[in-house]
């Protein structure tokens, strides 16, 4: 069991205004040519919540996240973050607004060490200009040291002390996912967007990750959106769950409510009308044989 850990500086320093993360998605539609990836999605995330987005493969979960983080441009609808319309914002300006993300297929900088990777998360918080940078003036040095201290606290929190100077390319998969989470935390986001943080992990790695996410969310009030396939994790840690299927929102609510929603069960287990037809055909077959 872990001993007591201090709260990282980025959370210690947050006052009320800095934690606020109210995301509102209004009738969002996205299509690629003839394929309707998202149609009329409404969604809300409030400060301090951990909202999970689930759905079968191809349901549009990642597309929704890509819209929120500026990688895709929705054709219709609006995304409002803390009262500001951010639908047309570019990806890099969204990180400044306070939306930080991790990727489904790890997108780290393979040649760099863990520390340099995380240092890139601090890029938007470095305030010095090019000329002082050229001369590495004392103020630049001071700022670099300040960011390093912040990173070390995140490294402590994520238990990555042993690998901080290792090149990311040499790390196992689960560890890379953790580095990516660390890099996203270094952005100091108000809203943390996680795209399948548990994919391809062993049970132990999943347990560690759950512990980190719970501590971030419950302990320090980090608002998060999570896309995940592992139902046992989603149902046990999220405040609310949104279910997507073929680009449409099927259901939304607490984990318990969603679990017992017949539409959700139908989408996952393939039930309802279609299942009925199949059964009758089956019966027919049996009759033929009989």
């Amino acid at each position: 069991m872990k001993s007591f850990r201090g709260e990282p500086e980025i959370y210690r320093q947050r006052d009320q205004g800095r934690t606020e993360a109210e995301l509102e998605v209004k009738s969002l539609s996205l299509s690629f040519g003839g394929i309707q990836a998202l149609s009329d999605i409404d969604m809300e995330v409030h400060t301090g919540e951990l909202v999970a987005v689930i759905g079968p493969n191809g349901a549009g979960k990642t597309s929704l996240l890509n819209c929120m983080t500026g990688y895709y441009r929705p054709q219709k609808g609006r995304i409002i973050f803390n009262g500001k319309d951010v639908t047309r914002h570019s990806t890099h300006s969204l990180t400044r607004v306070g939306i930080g993300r991790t990727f489904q297929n790890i997108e780290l900088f393979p040649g760099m060490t863990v520390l340099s990777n995380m240092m890139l998360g601090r890029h938007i918080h470095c305030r010095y200009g090019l000329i002082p940078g050229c001369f590495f003036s004392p103020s630049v040095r001071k700022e670099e040291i300040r960011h390093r201290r912040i990173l070390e606290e995140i490294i402590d929190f994520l238990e990555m002390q042993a690998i901080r100077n290792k090149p990311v390319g040499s790390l196992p998969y689960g560890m890379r996912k953790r580095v990516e989470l660390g890099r996203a935390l270094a952005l100091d986001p108000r809203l943390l967007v996680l795209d399948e943080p548990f994919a391809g992990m062993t049970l132990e790695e999943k347990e560690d990750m759950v512990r980190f996410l719970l501590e971030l969310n419950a302990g320090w009030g980090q608002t998060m959106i999570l896309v995940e396939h592992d139902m046992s994790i989603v149902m046990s840690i999220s405040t609310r769950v949104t279910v997507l299927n073929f680009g449409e929102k099927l259901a939304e609510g607490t984990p318990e409510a969603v679990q017992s929603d017949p539409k959700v069960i139908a989408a996952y287990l393939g039930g309802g009308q279609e299942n009925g037809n199949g059964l009758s055909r089956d019966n027919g077959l049996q009759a033929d044989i009989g």
Partner: protein
Amino acid sequence: MRDLKFHPCGNYRESYREELTVFETDFGRLWMALGLAVLFGVVPWTTSPYMLYVINTIGIMAIAAIGLNILIGSTGLISLGHGAFFGVGAYAAGVLASSWNVPIYLAVPAAGIITALTGMIFGIPSGRLKGLYLAIATLAGQFIIEYVLVHWEDVTQGTMGITLPDPSILGVSLRGDRPFFFVIFIVLAAMTWMAVNIMRTRFGRAFVAIRDNDRAAEGMGIPVFPYKLLSFGISSFYAGIAGAIWAFYMISITAEPFTMMMSVEFIAMVIIGGLGSISGSILGAVFITMLNETLRWVTDILMNAGGLAGLELTLAPLRELAFGLAIVLFILFEPKGLAEIWRVVRSSFRLWPFSY
């Protein structure tokens, strides 16, 4: 005074400040200081004028190569127009010095800034193009600049070229190889130091991030296109400074040397030296310049040897051939370039006699 560190057997650093140092040990600092002392104290006073000319050329090429390495090695953008940017710097300094009598210490930085702006304009295609396509776009830049240098006669005096006035700093005339040796190598030392600093601050990290994964770089809040332009600007700034010093050193300039061949030479320096390595750029400049001079020497001997005079035309492409061969051999056997060879040699010295 703090304890001096030579080769500690582990990581004994106690503050983040110590982690930010350029040299890992005081041993490295000592070697650097010794190297600079020999460079400035011994080299200019003991070498022959011809050797000094070669060394000066190396210094100028090294400045430009460092710039190109920031663009190609660190940001991952290929530019085939570096020779032309070098020419822009030379002409900018030439025009400033001959038409407006701007002193050398103002003309050189001004030429650097003019070239940086030019480079940023020709870097605009990098917003849309990558890899080979960008190389072709910058190749167009090379030919456009060459054309302008020859045909914008009001400013560049076309094929006549420009003759620069005698440069002087604070009344001290700079003429000849030795004074220029100091100008070139002080500028090289300063520009190297600045490049090291750029690479260890947020700008350098952003460049490497764009090279490694531009999608993730965007996700980290780095506006990719402006940073690509910045990289073009910095790299052309280096080329401009080098070109300007070269113009003052050569006294008279024409558009002739700033061709495609020069751009290829710069790329060869960067690849042979080691992509993304600042010390590698300097080593690459040494290697290519020495190769050039050796080949000239060899062809001279062969041509003067009796009965071989007719081979002149056959031997002319020898230089290009040796160039291509050197690049191919390096890519095959040491893709990380001379910088990696240097690192291996250094660490084998350090670990001797227990290298395993």
